[in-house]
């Protein structure tokens, strides 16, 4: 077992970064915590600080103001960290990619491990994405 597998073997803690989004992806991520989906049964927990997170969830297109903050967060994160881009905006910029404040999709700014497309992706899709990432 490599060091990376060892780090992600047990409960994953998630940190959520909402960029310039329409809020829907944010809500769907929160939805994963609520009774119907209940990610906490897998030991996943949304945490308040990147410093004790294993996974960084990024949704929304990233605008010029967010870019430096996202970089800063990534630098603060304990490594190894898994980065998941959520939603059409996170993956490519989606409908906002032509906007005048758009600063590039997430993978242009920080390395991304998994993409979960959809606008917004259903909570099932978010769960499936993270589980797939773990089994990789």
């Amino acid at each position: 077992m490599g060091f990376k597998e060892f780090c992600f073997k047990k409960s994953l803690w998630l940190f959520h970064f909402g960029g310039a989004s329409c809020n829907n992806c944010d809500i769907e991520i929160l939805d994963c915590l609520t009774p119907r989906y209940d990610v906490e049964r897998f030991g996943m927990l949304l945490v308040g600080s990147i410093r004790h997170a294993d996974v960084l969830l990024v949704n929304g297109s990233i605008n010029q103001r967010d870019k430096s903050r996202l970089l800063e967060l990534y630098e603060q994160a304990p490594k190894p960290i898994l980065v998941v881009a959520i939603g059409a905006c996170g993956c490519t910029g989606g409908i906002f990619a032509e906007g005048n404040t758009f600063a590039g999709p997430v993978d242009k700014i920080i390395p991304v491990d998994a993409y979960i497309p959809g606008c917004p992706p259903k909570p099932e899709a978010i769960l499936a994405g993270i589980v797939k990432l773990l089994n990789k």
Partner: protein
Amino acid sequence: MVKKTLIPIGPYHPLQEEPELFKLYCEGEIVKDIKWETGYNHRGIEQLSEKKTFDQSFFLVERVCGICSTSHPFAFANAVEEAGNIEITNRAKYIRSIVGELERIHSHLLWVGLAGHFLGYNTVFMWAWKYREPILDLFEMISGNRNSYAMFKVGGVRRDIENNKIPKIKETLDKFKKKNDLLVGAVMDDPVIHARTKGVGILTKQDIIDYAAVGPTARASGVAIDVRKDDPYAAYPLVNWKVITAEKGDVFAKAEVRLLEMYESISIIEQCLEGLKKEKEGEIEVKVKNIAAGWGTGHAEAPRGEVFHYVLTDGSNSPARHKIRAPSYTNIATFKKSCIGQTISDATISLAAVDPCYCCTERMAVAYDWKTGERILNGNELIALSAEKTSKLKNK
């Protein structure tokens, strides 16, 4: 002299799902002043909209805000239809209202949940969001997506609600009504919730008028404004319902207004469903060839208050100018009244009480050069630019 402490909340704070920055200036535990900063969420929607056709713009305005993703298309449709003098069919009106009211229910439930979470009542959070799921299932059945429904278009709606779907909608709403009774009971009778929300974050009637607040925030302070009554659109003039108000203006009153409004929404939907049965299936849109040059304004009552869209058309198939004003834009200013003088622990719930939505409210004030980081435009220069564009359009 007491020293003032600055407490920043945000921009990426676990309390909020959206990025925004609040600065609380406190003396001891009391909040003395508050400032907020946005811009983390700016996507340039008005500008993007001018590059798209009317049909495409609907998908864009839907994504101004994901939670009230019907109210923006609603107002936009009203604006374009006013510009183009289009009258839609009754069936389309009913469908629009049904989707709008379902959205109000899910948005209010979402707020109740989050408010519970902010108070440290995670049970309320879990309950409210659990009851919200069947409503989202209805959306999935009607439109194919849980959020962002893509139901609207100029001249009508994209998808019909066939008559065979009506019983399922009714059944879900009946079940939900019982759940809502439970939720209302839990909030109204709980002594701890009373203690935490009564007398907190009070906005008087005068404050509401001074700050031009709208929606449930205004109605909780006894100002009975509601676009659905004041300037009826879609199917609202065809059904019976009443505007819910409360007098106290505190957080509790705001919760009360929202909880009781959900019953009104259910009743509106039920009447609309009855109306649907009388109309012929499939008559959901009128064909629109082109939109003449001119302008139109449209509003709609979003779950948070009045959404306003202005569209300037030049005879082509895309808006020449598109202006959006979302309810949170005025509601957020009331923080200056509701939070000051509160303790820090009450400030969070006072902030949450207006159900602020920052992705709607985003404004840009200053532009920076992308590469050098140099400031290139300030507010006045931006205004001058905008004025120049208007005069260009005028002379065209």
